[in-house]
């Protein structure tokens, strides 16, 4: 008995070796590509001197971060970044789930073969092209002003009040189909016999969705939410810079941390300040992920990430 145990232990150890070896290429890639560059964060705290290199440059503490906060735009850009992202994450979640459920429901119909790829298509379109599509709709001679609003045209690119809605629509048009894919895959993995049993018991479609589908894919939903919360201080640069055509009048509703950094540093070309901005975004995002994971673990320890 004892001997057998020892053998099993020893064999266990040896058996891990091939697995570890197989992991090695991936691990090496991760270390080189994702971990070594983290050292670059030090640039955010330095006044870069090109002859002394990154390590030799003098430390300047938090001076590089000042430009993010020492302006009255700081409130606007942080507010915009957070509010847009909250809307994108939570409304996006509902839309993604709705589409995923609808897609699986029509999965047997022939037309699904067309609809499923079609709703993913906008995600493949370059944001520059999206910007011009929007421009074709909204410019002074554009489609909307020429048809729907003929007679009382709106100059959209001069009217900030409409843009929170426009940007939200554009974002969902572009990303919803693609965002639904992962849920479609999870739903496809649910055991069909559960639904059959529920039907026999007389469950309605709605009951099937709320009592079977959603509870089963909940871990996936939480995983996706945590991942998007990690990026809550970043924004889709193309959406906020290209789609409003960089129109100055719209800055109060289109300025996000990323566009502000871009606009400031295009002129200054200061490497330290740009790394400060992205360090700020990643550190806060990381804290938020840990924080929300902590909350999830408290209420539902099985769905927590770690």
């Amino acid at each position, binding site marked *: 008995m004892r001997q057998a145990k020892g053998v099993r232990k020893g064999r266990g150890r040896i058996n891990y070796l091939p697995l570890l070896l197989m992991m090695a290429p991936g691990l090496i890639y991760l270390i080189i590509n994702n971990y070594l560059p983290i050292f670059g964060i030090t640039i955010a705290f330095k006044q870069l001197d090109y002859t002394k290199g990154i390590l030799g440059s003098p430390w300047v503490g938090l001076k590089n971060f000042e430009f993010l906060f020492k*302006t009255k735009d700081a409130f606007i850009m942080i507010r915009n970044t957070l509010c847009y992202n909250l809307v994108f994450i939570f409304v996006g979640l509902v839309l993604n789930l709705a589409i995923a459920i609808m897609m699986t429901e029509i999965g047997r119909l022939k037309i699904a073969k067309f609809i499923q790829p079609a709703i993913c298509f906008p995600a493949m379109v370059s944001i520059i092209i999206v910007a011009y599509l929007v421009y074709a709709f909204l*410019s002074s001679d554009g489609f909307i002003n020429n048809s729907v609003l003929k007679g009382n045209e709106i100059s959209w690119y001069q009217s900030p009040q409409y843009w929170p809605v426009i940007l939200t629509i554009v974002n969902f048009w572009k990303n919803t189909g693609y965002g639904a894919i992962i849920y479609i895959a999870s739903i496809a993995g649910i055991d069909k016999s559960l639904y059959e049993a529920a039907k026999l018991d007389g469950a309605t479609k709605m009951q099937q969705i709320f009592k079977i589908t959603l509870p089963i894919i909940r871990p996936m939903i939480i995983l996706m939410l945590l991942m998007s919360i990690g990026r809550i201080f970043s924004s889709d640069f193309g959406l906020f810079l290209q789609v409003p055509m960089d129109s100055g009048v719209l800055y109060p509703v289109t300025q996000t941390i990323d566009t502000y950094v871009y606009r400031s540093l295009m002129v200054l070309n200061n490497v330290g300040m740009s790394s400060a901005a992205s360090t700020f975004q990643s550190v806060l995002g990381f804290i938020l992920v840990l924080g929300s994971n902590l909350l999830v673990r408290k209420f539902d320890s099985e769905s927590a990430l770690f």
Partner: protein
Amino acid sequence: MNKKVISTLLAAASVITLIGCGSSTTAKTDETAAENSTVQTTEAAAKAASSGEGSVVTFSYPTLVVTPTPEGVAPVEDALNDYLKSIGKNYTVDLNPIDGNNYPTQTDMAIMSNENVGIYCPLAGLSNAVSSNKLLPLDDYLGAELKPVVDLEGDQMLRSGKVDGITYAMPCYKGYILYYYWVVDKDIFDATGFAGNDITDIRSLTPILEKIHEQNPDIAAIAPTLGLNGTGNNYCQLPTMGDPDDYKVTDLGSFLGLIVEGDSTKVENMYETQYFKEACELAYDWNQKGLTIKDASVTTDTPTDTQQAGRAASNIIGYGNSAESVAAFTDNTYAFPISKTMMASNSLVWGIASNCSNPRESADFLSLLYTDEQVINYIIYGTEGDDYVVTGEENGIKTIAYPEGQDMNSVPYTAQLSCGILGNQFIMYAIEGGTSPADISFMKENMDKAVYSPVFGYQIDVTPVSTQASAISNAANQYTGGLLCGELDPKTYIPQLIDAVNAAGMQDVIAVAQDQLDAWKTEQ
């Protein structure tokens, strides 16, 4: 047993894959090295140093639109090095053309990681390059290797390459004086009944534009010029109204709205001046009268395209070329000059990277770019026969063309579009469809008669106030496009703009700029 065999096999397979990965990466690295001439240079330099041959000078220059491949560069490099040997130089040159869009980042990164960049152009600004130690001081070479450049450009021009009294770079020598032309469709202009001499400056365009609008209600009378770096579209009011016969304004650069006016050296907030106000009012007037295209502040079509597409009758554009040449650039147009700029500091200066191992030889080659016709033409146009053919000579300037059936995109090597960026433009050949020999003489004459800005040679260094500078450029970008395109009412929005830039720290930046300027003045 079976499992054991399989796992051993898997392990073996993964090890083999790893090795495979390893060797393919090495092979790839070799390829990349071959492509990446900076790396190649370092190796070449090391080789040369060890074998006692002459040293290798690296020349990193930006190319626009087309960047020659390493295969295209090699024969040019060989021909250039043969030529250098024939004139008794003891070094060879490694040509390192870099796509202009990546140039500032790539050269900065290369210097930071101690790769050999050699001679390069700090496009992001000289003062910035000096304050972060990217450039070598050139004072030691001014009396010897660089003497021909000093003689050629003259002390006044060289001020552009100085920071705190030390020379770090040599300005590109070319036709800096720009004329702003009002380019208008011939038929439309003829129909208005106005004559060429009715056009004196930008303000005199208003009645003509009104007439055009009256006669052609379907198209815009004028298209806007696209702003650079998010500074907003405009009708070139700022440069045209800033000319020496008008407000005589020098923009101190960095898109901060800092100017000096007339012959004074007092730094002013441009947004508070009559100059800026009039520029905005003119555009607002045009916009209110319906003379401009709709959505002018957000359009991304170039004015020439808008005009060619028949959506606008005219546009304003700056060129170093003569009116005849500018009119000929687009079909069926007149070009009327409305203003002429003065000499102001510029960032097209060439220095030697601080990590350069052979500054003396580099300085010598830098000098050849200004003085040796052969050298500069190898770099701009490549080798005769393969990359271009000679077609004749005009005004003592050789005229050339691309070989039969070839163009800029298909020849093995050309840096034609870099002609206004490096070296001495006045000793370059004139290529068909580019700057004509007559234009080169025209530009030379303008340079000789140029009016210099009172602060020529001063360049602002915003490093001490970079926080404020970033806030100011953001605050200003919000308004400038709309104001200069006439879409925002100057009465309401200029005061808002002034408040915004002041809140962003305009006073601090002005104080710093004034201190720097005063210090610079005492030095002169």
